[in-house]
């Protein structure tokens, strides 16, 4: 091989090397990524969700005493989306226009309304009342029930155990004083309900009133009167009753139902 041949080979090899190297550089060239669709994104402050729609603490003041709806917590953002968009925007969502995403730090200012885009979050807020930014907040009835109960008179809030012992106490004091008529016609089938008003010391104020009476026919009116009188006598004989003072609201006015049908 002559020098010339070897120089030629070397030159071709160098050129080939250069070509290879320059092509490979082309292949490894990095390009900037191109976004394929535009997705509008709203950034929300994490702190906002906690503060919205906190149920009011049970207290007389927070009970709905006037016509204003319960005020939301003060830090709540005002409803961000424009309320005048009941129908979803029919324009197709993806827009090739790239919108730079919102800057990461959350802004307290309301984000710009975008009426042309379908705001699915807005949709959800319309439909699902439990979401934090719902337009129509559901009534929090749990707190409401508590506040109503507290506002009602004490007498109606009865503890079943206290009532049961109260009934037993009244019964134990009045039943031994009741002498139902012996052997009169139809008296076994009669009943009478008396309404009693008691003072704080357990004494009867006024007279027991007959509220209702059953088993009375045209023919046994005299027996019915005698029967009702035995009931009234039972109450008056055994007054004053000894009943717990703290439950006075429950026993200051009550009814007694005298029914001898179970007596032998």
């Amino acid at each position, binding site marked *: 091989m002559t020098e010339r041949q070897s120089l030629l080979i070397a030159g071709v090899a160098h050129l080939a090397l250069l070509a290879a190297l320059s092509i490979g550089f082309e292949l490894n060239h990095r390009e900037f990524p191109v976004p394929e669709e535009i997705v509008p994104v709203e950034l929300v402050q994490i702190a906002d969700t906690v503060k919205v729609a906190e149920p009011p603490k049970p207290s007389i003041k927070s009970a709905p005493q006037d016509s204003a709806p319960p005020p939301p917590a003060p830090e709540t953002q005002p409803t961000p989306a424009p309320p005048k968009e009941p129908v979803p925007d029919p324009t197709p969502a993806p827009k090739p226009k790239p919108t730079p995403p919102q800057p990461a730090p959350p802004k307290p200012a309301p984000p710009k309304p975008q009426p042309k885009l379908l705001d699915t979050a807005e949709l959800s807020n319309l439909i699902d009342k439990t979401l934090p930014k719902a337009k129509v907040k559901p009534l929090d009835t749990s707190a409401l029930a508590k506040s109503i109960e507290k506002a*009602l008179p004490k007498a109606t809030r*009865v503890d079943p155990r206290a009532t049961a012992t109260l009934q037993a106490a009244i*019964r134990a004091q009045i039943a*031994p004083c009741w*002498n139902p008529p012996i*052997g*009169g016609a139809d008296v076994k089938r009669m009943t009478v309900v008396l309404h009693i008003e008691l003072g704080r010391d357990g004494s009867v104020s006024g007279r027991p009133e007959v509220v209702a009476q059953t088993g009375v026919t045209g023919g046994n009116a*005299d027996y019915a*009167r005698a029967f009702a009188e035995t009931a009234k006598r039972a109450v008056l004989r055994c007054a004053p009753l000894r009943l717990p003072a703290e439950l006075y609201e*429950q026993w200051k006015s009550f009814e007694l139902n005298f029914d001898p049908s179970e007596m032998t």
Partner: protein
Amino acid sequence: MRIPLLLVALLLATPAAAVLRVDINTGIAQPLPIAVPAFAATAPAATQAGTTTDLGARVAAVIAADLGSSGLFRPLDPAAYTTTVTPGDVTAPQFASWRTLAAQALVTGNVTANPDGGITVGCYAYDVFSSEELARQGFVTTAANWRRAAHKCADLVYSRLTGETGYFDSRIVYVSETGGKTKRIKRLAVMDQDGANHRFLTNGQNLVLTPRFAPNQQTITYMSFADNKPRVWLYTLGTGHQEVVGEFPNMSFAPRFSPDGSALVFSMATGGNTDIFRMDLASRRISRLTDAPGIDTAPSYAPDGAHIVFESDRGGSQQVYVMNADGSGQHRISFGDGRAATPVWSPRGDLIAFTRLGAGKFRIGVMKPDGSGERLLTSAYQDEGPTWSPNGRVILFFRTVQGRSTTALMSVDLSGQNERRLKTPLDASDPAWSPLLP
């Protein structure tokens, strides 16, 4: 806006569902404690029956005894009374002192001597615990009749407090017996329902049985063996006049008046058969009501006069039958164990009292006019011959003590309680109770 208004409305409305109601299902069935203090004399005066003060005490005693004998009242012991009733207290009693005695009712009254020799008894009933006056009435009568005024006052108190009509102002006619088993002397006797004013009507020469009052109470019908002929007689109480209702050739017995007093039903034996006949008292004409083989006896009218209950053994043993007043529709109503005899229809029309014979005993029972609801009220050896009080609440009968020949009048309340003996001077049987005296 609507929801807050609803809330406001809820707050303002008082809930009505929380009225406490207590059921009293048991009580104590006991006689009503009642206080009957001596009646006050409006002014001390003398009457044919004693001073008015004295009469006041006796009237109160009679009232207390009547009410106690009914079994529905318990008169308090007069020795326990803490106050005496003055004439002013009669209309305005001091209830506090009666309450301490645990009296639930109070009867006060006064006795006034009238210028014509009679008396006026004022009678007042009060409810002690409610301090209310329940009833008041005055009764004018002769001094000798003071007991009737007391009975009428007791009837007033009884009916006001129990709802029943009274029965204390009535009389009982019965057969007074004496002598041994072989020499029995039987006399008709009449007395007040509490045993007072007793007098004999016949002298015991002839055997007498089953006396019964007429509705007007002036006549008694009975059966007598005068001249050895057992026949039905009439006795006029005012005059003592006795007459036989009809000269029948055969036995006639078991007479009773119809509710209007115009007729008599009785049994008569003809042609070997004993049947029930009806006699119109004005015309003395008899008509036959039953014709079955066997002994038909003890007829008793229903208070409306439309039906008659009687006893017959046409089915083989004594049983109780009911028929229409003209004799039609005879049907048996007693179907219990043993035999049934001497039926009597209650003045209230709701029950028939009878004697149940069986298991070695005679017992008094009641049943409804259709035969259902049979209840036996007594349980001794030999109780028979029931008769009803005028209010249909008390049954009087006579009891023979086992092993002895003594008989006595006994009464029992319709509830089966309060069995008590009615004291008579001698032995007694076959009682009959009069209607309430007007």
